[in-house]
């Protein structure tokens, strides 16, 4: 029983990480209808930012965190300005390709930093290696922090898209750019904002993840497991991203324990396939159909 | 005004209950003239009852028009016939294939074209990144006679079939005057031409029944007149029955043999164009009373 609880707990924590990254995907998807393959890399950059601020500059954790978030947000805006904006309006697929390219570049650049890029680093967060004991249950503070941050972030983003004019305008721009222009929605500016926001979210994810998987150039690949999370939840639904992440995390944790080796790595993908068979639009996705 | 010979007699009656014929032995006994009959069709989307117990029949060789205010459920009826939606209740029978009528719900959406029903869309659904010619050739899909491997090796038979398809398509192009646009990408065509291309594509399937959703919307008077001629050609020379949704009453009264007016998903009135147009309820819900537009004008003192 305790075993199951412990597995559940670690599944939830891992799931929150997936959810957090998926949140970034969904954010970009909802606001621009593109799928960003660079989200994992942005996260990696965010983690490196925080790492640099703490280890190289020597800032305290909170200072470094804020700095990293701000720096990444600025970077996101800049990225949009330089590479995304020129082809805004081209088929979404082009932008997806761009994000793949951005991913390569980010990984390449980081790897090229002498003596730092190729190595693995640990992020010295203040709560590192701390654990809470609830009876026999061990709760990792690192993981608890992830769960908390994820919940808060999800709530904020949800409120933005649901109630704020800006959030609705972002969705409008993604659904019909032309009409958005006709309505005077500053599509380009919003797009920049979205990328800034997504990069900030990625930075947060990176810092939360840093203590657990370490900071290294390839840490962004974990994003590949966040895709299934986003799909299981229904791409385009923020709460869905979190729930999807949890489902994937928990399934993974149990599969790793009870099933033979190899199932753990494939479990998320099996789950997503089953989900697509049963509910092609995910748990929270709406069934959309073109009216002719 | 042209009317197909032999079809001038119209049994006008709102709804099918009133239309009930002395049937003796099931659907097969229905008037041999009937091509498609819908009975008690209803469909519900969540809280919206888009079509509510609508019955009608389309006869061979006629132009049958659906009119009604926006949101009356006309397009939904089309979508039910082309199996994009499945009716909540009611059935649609197709009498076009051999002797026994079949229920359309027994067919998959892609089989409808092969039965001989082709349609156009209200919002134009063309293959945007292909040329007009290509679009029309796709329209001939139901007539393909080559298999996969024959196409891979492009056997002489395939070549022949291709040339034949091309000849057929070329006739449609000529009928609808599309020669100019033959090799143009659809994406760059003006709205009006696209409407015609869509009609042409539907014709390429060589249908028995053609569903036209607002064929004249976006066309000016002159072009609408052309459209009227085409519809008449299609009806009279090609012998294709037409089921049409249209808001332009001049076109409606020019080409249609019978009209069914709908409102809020229900059948409101049916009969000849003239009868329906003079129906008080239709005028009230759809046509509007005043015909004088001068009230729109700016009065001199303003």
């Amino acid at each position: 029983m305790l075993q199951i609880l412990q597995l559940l707990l670690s599944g939830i924590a891992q799931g929150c990480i997936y959810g957090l990254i998926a949140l970034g995907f969904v954010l970009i998807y909802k606001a621009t209808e593109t799928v960003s393959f660079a989200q994992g890399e942005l996260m990696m950059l965010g983690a490196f930012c925080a790492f640099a601020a703490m280890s190289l500059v020597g800032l305290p954790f909170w200072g470094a965190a804020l700095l990293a978030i701000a720096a990444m947000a600025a970077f996101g805006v800049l990225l949009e300005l330089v590479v995304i904006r020129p082809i805004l309006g081209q088929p979404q697929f082009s932008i997806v390709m761009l994000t793949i390219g951005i991913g390569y570049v980010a990984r390449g650049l980081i790897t090229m930093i002498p003596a730092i890029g190729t190595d693995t680093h640990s992020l010295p967060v203040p709560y590192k290696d701390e654990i809470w004991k609830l009876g026999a249950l061990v709760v990792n503070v690192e993981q608890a922090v992830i769960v908390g941050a994820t919940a808060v972030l999800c709530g904020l983003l949800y409120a933005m898209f649901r109630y704020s004019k800006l959030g609705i305008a972002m969705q409008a721009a993604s659904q019909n750019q032309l009409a958005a222009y006709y309505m005077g929605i500053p599509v380009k500016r919003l797009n920049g904002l979205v990328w800034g926001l997504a990069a900030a979210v990625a930075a947060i994810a990176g810092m939360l993840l840093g203590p657990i998987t370490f900071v290294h150039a390839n840490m962004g690949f974990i994003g590949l497991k966040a895709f299934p999370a986003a799909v299981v939840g229904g791409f385009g639904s923020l709460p869905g991203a979190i729930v999807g992440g949890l489902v994937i995390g928990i399934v993974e944790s149990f599969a790793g324990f009870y099933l033979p080796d190899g199932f753990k790595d494939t479990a998320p993908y099996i789950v997503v396939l089953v989900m697509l068979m049963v509910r092609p639009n995910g748990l929270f996705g709406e069934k959309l159909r073109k009216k002719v | 005004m042209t009317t197909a010979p032999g079809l001038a007699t119209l049994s006008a009656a709102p709804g099918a209950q009133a239309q009930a014929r002395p049937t003796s032995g099931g659907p097969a006994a229905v008037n041999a003239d009937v091509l498609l009959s819908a009975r008690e069709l209803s469909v519900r989307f969540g809280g919206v009852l888009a079509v509510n117990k609508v019955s009608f029949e389309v006869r061979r060789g006629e132009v049958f028009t659906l009119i009604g205010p926006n949101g009356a459920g006309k397009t939904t009826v089309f979508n039910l016939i082309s199996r994009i939606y499945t009716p909540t209740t009611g059935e649609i029978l197709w009498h076009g294939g051999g002797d026994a009528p079949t229920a359309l719900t027994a067919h998959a959406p892609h089989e409808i074209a092969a039965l001989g029903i082709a349609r156009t869309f209200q919002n134009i659904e063309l293959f945007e990144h292909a040329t007009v010619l290509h679009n029309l050739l796709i329209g001939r899909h139901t007539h393909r006679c080559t298999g996969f491997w024959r196409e891979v090796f492009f056997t002489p038979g395939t070549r022949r079939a291709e040339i034949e398809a091309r000849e057929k398509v070329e006739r449609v192009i000529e009928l609808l005057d599309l020669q100019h646009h033959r090799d143009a990408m659809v994406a760059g065509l003006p709205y009006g031409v696209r409407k015609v291309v869509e009609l042409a594509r539907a014709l390429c399937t060589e249908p028995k029944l053609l569903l036209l959703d607002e064929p004249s919307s976006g066309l000016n008077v002159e072009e609408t007149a052309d459209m009227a001629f085409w519809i008449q050609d299609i009806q009279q020379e090609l012998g294709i029955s037409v089921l049409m949704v249209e808001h332009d009453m001049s076109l409606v009264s020019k080409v249609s043999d019978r009209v069914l007016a709908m409102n809020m998903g229900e059948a409101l009135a049916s009969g000849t164009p003239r009868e329906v147009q003079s129906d008080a309820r239709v005028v009230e819900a759809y046509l509007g009373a005043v015909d004088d537009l001068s009230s729109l004008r700016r009065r001199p003192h303003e």
Partner: protein
Amino acid sequence: QSQGVTKDEIRIGTIQDLSGPLAGYGKQARNGMQLRVDELNEQGDVNGRKLKLFVEDSGYDPKKAVLAAQKLVNQDKIFIMAGHLGTAQNMAAMPVQFEKNVVNFFPITAAREMYEPLHRLKYSFAATYYDQIRLALPKMIKDKGAKKVCTIYQDDEFGLEVERGAEAGLKTVGMELTEKTSYKRGATDFSSQVAKMKAANCDLVVLGTIIRETIGTVGEARKTGFNPVFLGSSAAYTDLIHKLGGKAMDGIYATHTAQHPYLDEASQPLRFWANKYKTKFNEDPTVFSVYGYSIIDAFIKAAQKAGPNLTTDSFVKAMDTMTFEPDMFGAPKSTYTATKRLGNDQSRLSQIVDGKWKVVSDYVAP
């Protein structure tokens, strides 16, 4: 005349992981090799020939290793492949080399496949993972009174070698593995593997892991309050473990041959060497720099011996009578013959104490 040898040049190829999970190792090994190459070129030559080193990156990916090997062999026309890092990568690349009669010289991995089955062009220098664990494990079990032994290993030829060594070692004391669990090359999350071993109540875990996996596994175990004895192979014997993993890594054991050059306690020549390394690459040398350096050093010695007419045949002939004496890095003596292609089979045991590897046993031979 063999390819890669001209009147005044010998072309040496090497494939390292410069961008993948073992980038830490690859870079150090390359630097070590480069240092010895430069040294030679500055101070002299091998029978009138200078050395030229061709480095390719495999990213610890066998496919890239094959492509790199094809490039080195067919395009750069190397004479010899030296110090290629990684078991799976070597296994993949060797056929390409052998087709063109290029020797696979001292790959940086201790898998048995590096000299078995016997092949004219294979030379290996490191006591195998198999032997390392097979010998160290029974001793550990005895010392620690372990009852249940588990293993976590990388799911490829490297991990399997460790796992097989563990099984063989257990057999000698009449035990069996309680739990086996594996992970994929490049994995970063080991929570379920650790949970499995914890649930099995293991008190000794054999680590078929390398850098991040070692840290990840041990770290995860410590976090969940699971504290068995950890025993790794020479693949995990690196200063990166305690540098990255911090305090949590204290106490783990690993087998190895050469020693990490901690400068504060090193001998004078070693310090001199380390200084040279540091001036050149601006970082402290590690045990993998040592590997790289020694490999080129050994090559130079054998090539000297092969004489001015350097061909693959003459090189093989020279190698087959070579003996390398213990050097300043603490490696034992190693010898080669036409049928003995593993130079040395002795290994020893170290433990991390206060953030440093401390040797805890002497060399043992099988």
